[in-house]
């Protein structure tokens, strides 16, 4: 039993890289480390190396806004994220690591009849798939979030909302560290400061990776890269329907009152929650143009803060403490791309866009099963790369909370 809110030291056992592994995972973020953990814990495969260019969690696992939810808009995604929410519920005990997992509930506001129809459809689809998302009145939303201005600053009156009680937040970097430490305890090698510079090929097969400190051979190479996946997959001759866009967020100074739920708004494209430190965390849509630059912009602060103060007037009195950005792999249909690539020995877990953190346990568990058994579990079969050729897209832009 882990006491919530108590942070214990996490013990890492760093290893020197070998020349050969059964499995090499490129990218030491949540998805890469979770896959390594489940390979060792569920399938007894611990001859695994996770290669990280900088430090673990340096990418989007340490830059996201930590929301865990399953209120998606296509059945395949509702089931997948629902399973991830279930795994998160017991993950602190499984990893023996507290990451301050807090149930908060998510209120998704609607200001127009069109948005009300979209939220009703979401609610019905979620309920049909066994995920609780219910419609609530403006007064019920006010009851859950007393700080909410139901007139939307006079401009965006609230007509109603969908409410997803199981939504939660967790401390993202401790999720990464928890998976890393649990994988290391089972013999997985996690190697930081080691950028992968290329893929080793033998004919059509991928047989390992090239790094600055020499080649490393492997039976299977999994790309769990965030941001630079197009270039890495291109080395295997795999083309991806992905554009890399920056996503920004900011936090304010501490807000002394309690702010219970996660408040989200698909029409204004912004959302807010309170961090464990009491700061108000605000995110909005990703930058419209693709870019690999991690530079934050003043125009993002202007537009996001203008939107959020319409809904939460108290935020006028707070100050912005810091802002940051991450580079997100936005897939063409706003759903992830998981599994086989058509190239032997090379798998991907990518297209995690702005929705990857909540999927870390389910994505890692499923990719471990693909690597260990060679079979793709039904849960992720719809998310295969070949869906674009088969014209079976999982278009779900409206559920990402972004544009």
């Amino acid at each position, binding site marked *: 039993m882990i006491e919530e809110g108590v942070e214990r030291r996490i013990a890492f056992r760093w290893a020197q890289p070998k020349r050969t592994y059964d499995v090499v995972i490129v990218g030491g973020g949540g998805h890469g480390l979770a896959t390594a953990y489940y390979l060792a814990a569920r399938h007894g495969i611990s001859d695994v190396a996770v290669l990280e260019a900088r430090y673990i969690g340096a990418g989007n696992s340490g830059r996201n806004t930590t929301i865990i939810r399953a209120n998606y808009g296509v059945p395949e995604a509702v089931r997948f994220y629902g399973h991830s929410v279930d795994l998160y519920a017991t993950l602190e005990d499984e990893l023996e690591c507290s990451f301050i997992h807090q149930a908060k509930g998510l209120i998704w506001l609607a200001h127009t009849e069109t948005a009300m129809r979209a939220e009703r459809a979401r609610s019905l689809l979620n309920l049909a798939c066994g995920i609780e998302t219910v419609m609530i009145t403006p007064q019920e939303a006010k009851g859950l979030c007393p700080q909410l201005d139901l007139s939307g600053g006079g401009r965006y009156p609230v007509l109603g909302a969908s409410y997803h009680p199981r939504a939660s937040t967790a401390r993202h970097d401790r999720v990464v560290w928890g998976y890393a430490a649990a994988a290391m305890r089972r013999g997985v090698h996690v190697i930081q400061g080691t950028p992968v510079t290329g893929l080793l090929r033998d004919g059509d097969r991928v047989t390992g990776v090239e790094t600055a400190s020499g080649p490393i051979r492997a039976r299977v190479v999994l790309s769990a890269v965030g941001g630079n996946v197009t270039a890495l997959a291109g080395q295997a001759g795999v083309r991806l329907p*992905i554009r890399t866009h*920056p996503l920004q967020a900011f936090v304010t100074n501490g807000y002394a009152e309690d702010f219970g739920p996660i408040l989200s708004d698909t029409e204004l494209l912004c959302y807010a929650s309170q961090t464990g430190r009491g700061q108000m965390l605000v995110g909005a849509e990703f930058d419209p*143009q693709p*870019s690999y630059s991690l530079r934050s912009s003043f125009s993002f602060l202007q537009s996001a803060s203008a939107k959020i103060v319409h809904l939460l007037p108290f935020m006028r009195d707070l100050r912005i403490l810091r802002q940051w950005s991450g580079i997100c792999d936005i897939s*063409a249909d706003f759903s992830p791309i998981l599994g086989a690539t058509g190239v032997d020995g090379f798998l991907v877990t990518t297209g995690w866009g702005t929705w990857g953190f909540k999927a870390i346990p389910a994505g890692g568990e499923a990719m471990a099963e693909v690597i260990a058994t060679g079979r793709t579990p039904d849960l992720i079969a719809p998310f295969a790369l070949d869906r674009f050729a088969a014209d079976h897209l999982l278009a779900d832009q409206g559920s990402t909370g972004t544009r």
Partner: protein
Amino acid sequence: MLWLPCSNCGRRPVEEFIFGGELRVPDEAIVDPAARDLDYVWMQDNPEGISTERWFHAAGCRRWLTVRRDTATDSDVA
């Protein structure tokens, strides 16, 4: 912040524009017509570096322009 060179309006802030995607032509090296269509419709070069793109000057002259942009630094290239 990114400013884009519009041939009608001069250098204008990116907020005035709508991103129209990579400027692409079907890859004639792909022989199979279905595979070529798949690549043209869905796949992206998504380079970290110089990208040639279409942009629509929505809040200006309302014309399309072609811009060369460095995606590593998010700045335009003359």
